[in-house]
């Protein structure tokens, strides 16, 4: 069953002044538990697509169905709550709240979701263990390496078991070793927790690890390749 489905998704920036067609008639569908990479040259619309899927921006036309529910019609407040309840995000940087420790950063979303303290604490520890940071629970982001920070971000995105996780170039600021390490963790969590994971990247080495690779060129889908691993 498709967790996410886009129908004729189109995004035009600056519609009134100098229109920039960032996405054009994109029809895609993602199944539960998929591990997908969005690739394509710079400016091809990767970030735009992920922002649309995550409800961070509204399309110019087209539909985005998440669990068969069209999120393009939601009001801003409903959309924020939808993101909180159903979507996990990992960004390229500025993922964490600098004044909170690793475990507090992971707990933060679950607190907003109003889970019980005890459950939050237990889950935050568990997921940080899973990303290999069981011994850095009380470290602040500034005390962690870039790779470790991204792992905390992944832990936070997955902690509340969202319907899917969107990651826009999560490895862009990491060295090769850390990038592979992060990918390993994402893949492992995807498999163990069966959470749908979509990430964008430029990085050829990282693309190899995805089980599905969608290629965007000039805002349109130029390739959609599923691999068996």
């Amino acid at each position, binding site marked *: 069953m498709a967790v996410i489905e886009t129908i004729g998704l189109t995004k035009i920036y600056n519609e009134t002044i100098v229109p920039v067609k960032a996405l054009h008639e994109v029809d895609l569908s993602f199944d539960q538990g998929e591990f997908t990479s969005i690739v394509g040259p710079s400016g091809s619309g990767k970030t735009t697509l992920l922002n649309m899927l995550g409800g961070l921006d509204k399309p110019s036309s087209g539909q985005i169905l998440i669990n068969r529910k069209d999120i393009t019609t939601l009001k801003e407040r409903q959309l924020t709550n939808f993101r909180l309840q159903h979507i996990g*995000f990992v960004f390229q*940087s500025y993922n964490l*709240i600098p004044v909170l420790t690793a475990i507090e950063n992971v707990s933060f979303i679950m607190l907003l979701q109003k889970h019980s303290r005890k459950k939050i604490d237990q889950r935050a520890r568990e997921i940080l263990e899973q990303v290999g940071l069981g011994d850095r629970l009380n470290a602040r982001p500034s005390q962690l390496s870039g790779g470790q920070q991204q792992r905390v971000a992944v832990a936070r995105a997955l902690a509340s078991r969202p319907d899917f996780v969107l990651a826009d170039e999560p490895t862009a600021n990491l060295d090769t070793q850390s990038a592979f390490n992060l990918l390993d963790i994402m893949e492992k969590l995807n498999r163990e927790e069966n959470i749908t994971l979509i990430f964008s990247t430029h990085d050829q080495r990282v693309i190899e690890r995805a089980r599905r690779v969608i290629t965007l060129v000039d805002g349109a889908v130029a390739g959609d390749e599923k691999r068996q691993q």
Partner: protein
Amino acid sequence: MMLIKIAWRNIWRNTSRSLTILIAIMIGLAAALMASAFSMGFVQQRFNNVIERFVSHIQIHNPEFVHDGEVYQYLDKPQKLLQSLSQIPEIKYFTERTKINGMIASAKVSAGVQITGIKPEAEQRLTDLKGWLTKGTYFEDVKRNPVYIGQELANKLKVDVGSRVVINFQDLDGDITAASFKVVGIFKTIELAFDEGTVFVRRSDLNSLLGDEALTHEIALILNDFNQTTTVKNQLQQQFPAYEVRSWENLSEELLMMQEMTTQSLIFLVFIILLGLGFGILNTMLMSVFERTRELGMLIAVGMSKMHVFRMIMLETLFLSFTGAITGMLSGFLLISWLGTKGINLAGLAGDSLAIYGYGNMIYPDLEPQFYFQTAIMVLLIAVLSALYPAFKALKLVPAEAVRKE
């Protein structure tokens, strides 16, 4: 809970910037309070001087005397009143005075003065007349017509202790009477106008010149407890409706008004200072919001509602303001309390010039709790107002823009 924690820690991210504004608030507020306390101490000092030295707590007059001050507007048959006064337990001391206007003349100069006939012993218990003695004696060991005059008047008349002066006035029949008096003592208060315009003689001397031994224009009394003033005043007024009973509040309305006006203008001063500080806070918080565009965008992206972000920025601003305000008010309070007991001596600074305006050299800064309370209310108001703008700015964030890499 979490928001409070984040907000509090966020303040300390840019420690030097936060400290700068905190110290500005602290110093600004402490200085504003200190300046206010100093002014209030200034006013209070005059207030106490006037009440304690000259006015006493309650005075009783013929109602007409209050307006005209004529010699024939004396208290009619005061025996019963005097008897009651000695029986009211709240009253500590009272004394009768004869008060007329006249001329005083030395060999060279003459001047218009108020002549107050006092009972020197009794007067001493009510006012500090004796304490102001600078030369000669306070009605001691003198036989005929002693007069006690102020330094200013002595200078003007070019007289000294031992000099003879002539005092002219109208007696009860309207005839001009003149009598010779001998200067026995010279006093100096902090109010030069008083020193120049008032002379004291023995009531018995004055009354025999006026032709009525029992003549009384004024009865002044002080109470055991200052706070009983209104009660005792009302009681006396009710008991003796023919007389006019006035408390120090009526007697020195001008002083009360002055105190009130000073308070008002000081509150305004504090408000202006707070307004300035408010803009400082606003600027600091705006900078802090702009710097965190990405981070705040991320928070909204991952599901923190704008209401939460708004509240977080509000909290940060309020924490910042209140930390500054509390430390500022506290240090202001401590400084005021300390100087309030120790006093500030302005003698070296102002010399004698303060006395011209009726002020002494020692100032004891003092602020009513009410003033702190009003300041706190204004701090709250200004803090909320300066928090709103940065918080609304944060509401304008578009998460998709904010999280895009640059």
